């Protein structure tokens, strides 16, 4: 199977996507290339197949490729479409894995580079004394990884209804008695909703809730998918179908329609929703790649995953907390306060 490394036409070093300039840079000769330049290079390479044809072999669900740069083996799983050679660090793209249905229609390129992601993480960790050192360690933060995550963007036409009970409460005073009158109403609401581009993560490896929390992405930045965007990042292809994803989307829509219809129940002191439902009448999905920075931490045998939206910088995840540090700080404060309080108390008494 074909393995592509986007190489600098000047020095043959690997090219990586620069999220700041939105161009492809060679870190060795400092050349920079536009998308059109890479397309030309790709056309030439397709016309003249490389001499070193790559082999692939299946090993218990994993695929084995050869790095076009150093010839070392690159082992990936079925869904990985872009990675790095473990030996020479060469970024590689596996284009055959994105043929046909697996070729994304669009991509949101990374807007934040690794340096910005690390800086954001340092800022987050600053003056947070309960974070364990293992996490705030520079060497650990260096491990933050950029990955293109497959998403389905769903357009949905929805009919929804809601039934509720509303209460209007009025109160007045007469003599030494307070009167409270409650008027009860049955509320009926039905409406049509049109949703555009509701994202749902299409990778089994990614935590669905975490990916949902990374939203929003700005889909105005969506670009037509080109293979070179993946160079320098990890990337996964979808392994959750749009039909499976739509179940999760439906739940989100049900919640949203309920909220929206509830908002129309105005001028009531209290509203109790008794039932609500939402039916997706028509739906359409688009396969896209969205940029995410990930940092995995293992602390006290527990896994912590930190994620950052590669476009907006929004951060989600759980960060570890050092319990011994909390005890130490609490102990210092308690002892210092006791000593100072005792001295002060004796002086004042």
């Amino acid at each position, binding site marked *: 199977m074909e393995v592509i490394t986007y190489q600098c036409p000047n020095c043959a070093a690997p090219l990586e996507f620069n999220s700041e300039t939105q161009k492809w840079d060679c870190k060795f000769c400092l050349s920079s290339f536009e998308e059109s330049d890479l397309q030309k290079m790709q056309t030439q390479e397709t016309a003249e197949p490389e001499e070193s044809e790559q082999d692939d072999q299946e090993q218990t669900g994993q695929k084995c490729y050869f790095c076009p740069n150093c010839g070392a083996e690159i082992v990936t799983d079925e869904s990985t479409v872009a990675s790095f050679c473990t030996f020479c660090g060469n970024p590689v793209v596996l284009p055959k894995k994105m043929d046909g249905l697996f070729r994304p229609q669009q991509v949101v390129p990374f807007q934040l580079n690794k340096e910005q992601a690390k800086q954001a993480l340092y800022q987050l960790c600053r003056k947070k004394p309960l974070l364990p050192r293992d996490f705030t360690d520079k060497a650990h933060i260096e491990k933050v990884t950029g990955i293109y995550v497959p998403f389905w963007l769903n357009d949905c036409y929805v009919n929804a209804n809601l039934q509720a009970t509303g209460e209007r409460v009025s109160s007045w005073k007469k003599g*030494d008695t*307070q009167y*409270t009158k409650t008027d009860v109403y*049955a509320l009926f609401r039905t409406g049509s909703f049109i949703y*555009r581009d509701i994202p749902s993560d299409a990778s089994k490896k990614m935590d669905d809730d975490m990916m949902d929390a990374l939203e929003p992405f700005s889909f105005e930045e969506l670009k037509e998918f080109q293979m070179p965007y993946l160079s320098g990042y990890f990337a996964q292809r979808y392994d959750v179908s749009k039909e499976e994803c739509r179940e999760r989307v439906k739940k989100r829509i049900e919640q949203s329609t309920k909220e929206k219809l509830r908002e129309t129940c105005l001028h009531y002191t209290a509203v109790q929703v008794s039932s609500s439902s939402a039916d997706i009448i028509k739906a359409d999905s688009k396969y896209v790649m969205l940029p995410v920075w990930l940092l995995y931490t293992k602390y006290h045998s527990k896994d912590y995953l930190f994620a950052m939206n590669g476009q907006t910088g929004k951060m989600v995840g759980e960060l570890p907390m050092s319990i011994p540090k909390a005890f130490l*700080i609490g102990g210092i*404060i308690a*002892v210092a306060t006791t000593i100072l309080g005792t001295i002060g108390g004796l002086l004042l008494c």
Partner: protein
Amino acid sequence: MLKRFLTLSLTILLLFACNVPVGAVRADLPLGLGEIRIIDNADLLSEQEEKQIEEYGEQIAQETGLIVLIQTTNSTNGKEIRRYLADAYEDLGYNDSMPSIMLGIDMGNRELAVVTSIVSEEYFPVKKTNAMVDDVTDYLSDGEYQRAAKKFLDETYETIRNYGVKPVKEIVLISLGAGVVLALIVVAVMVAVHPKLSNNQVSASRYLASKVQMHEHRDQYLRSHTAAVKINSNTGGSSSGGRFSSSSGGHYSGSSGKF
């Protein structure tokens, strides 16, 4: 590291607590006649009870050097109870320059007062007389007049006995409690500001392409019900206190309250 720190801290604390002299300074007791007078015009105490209180109060008066007056009445003749009590005290031949403490009970208005001559105010500040009024009130409300008088005498004795004694144990315990509470608050704040990234899902409403098209918007009246609640007027009393003068111009301090 943590164990070492805690051991060291506890050692310092214990050494510190041990080195502070317990009951360090004791102020001079009030120098006075040291006698008790009980004038039970309202007949709240039986003869035997009165005798018991007198004997008990005599000891306390002797030890503290205070003139102790317990006066009960059915009417203060329109006077504010504290002034009535101060006047009664002066009628007995005492004055505001003598260390004294008085308990007055007016059954007509169901009021009580604890008053002290101005020279004893140092021992019985208003905060203290307020507390004494509150403590005695509980017994008076229950009709336990002898126990009320005994409580008054006990508090008088305790106040004088503990005057000037630095409550080291209490100070250390309060400081320790405050330290623990402060530590818990600080750690709780640190835990609260610990980067917990919001993992809340963004509402799908964000992706609404247009306004909701409403097909049905109906509110149907079902029923009404009315509840009536009687408003309670506030009947609770509160004690008041501070400096005041007797009819003759003597200076006193004390508190009064209702029971």
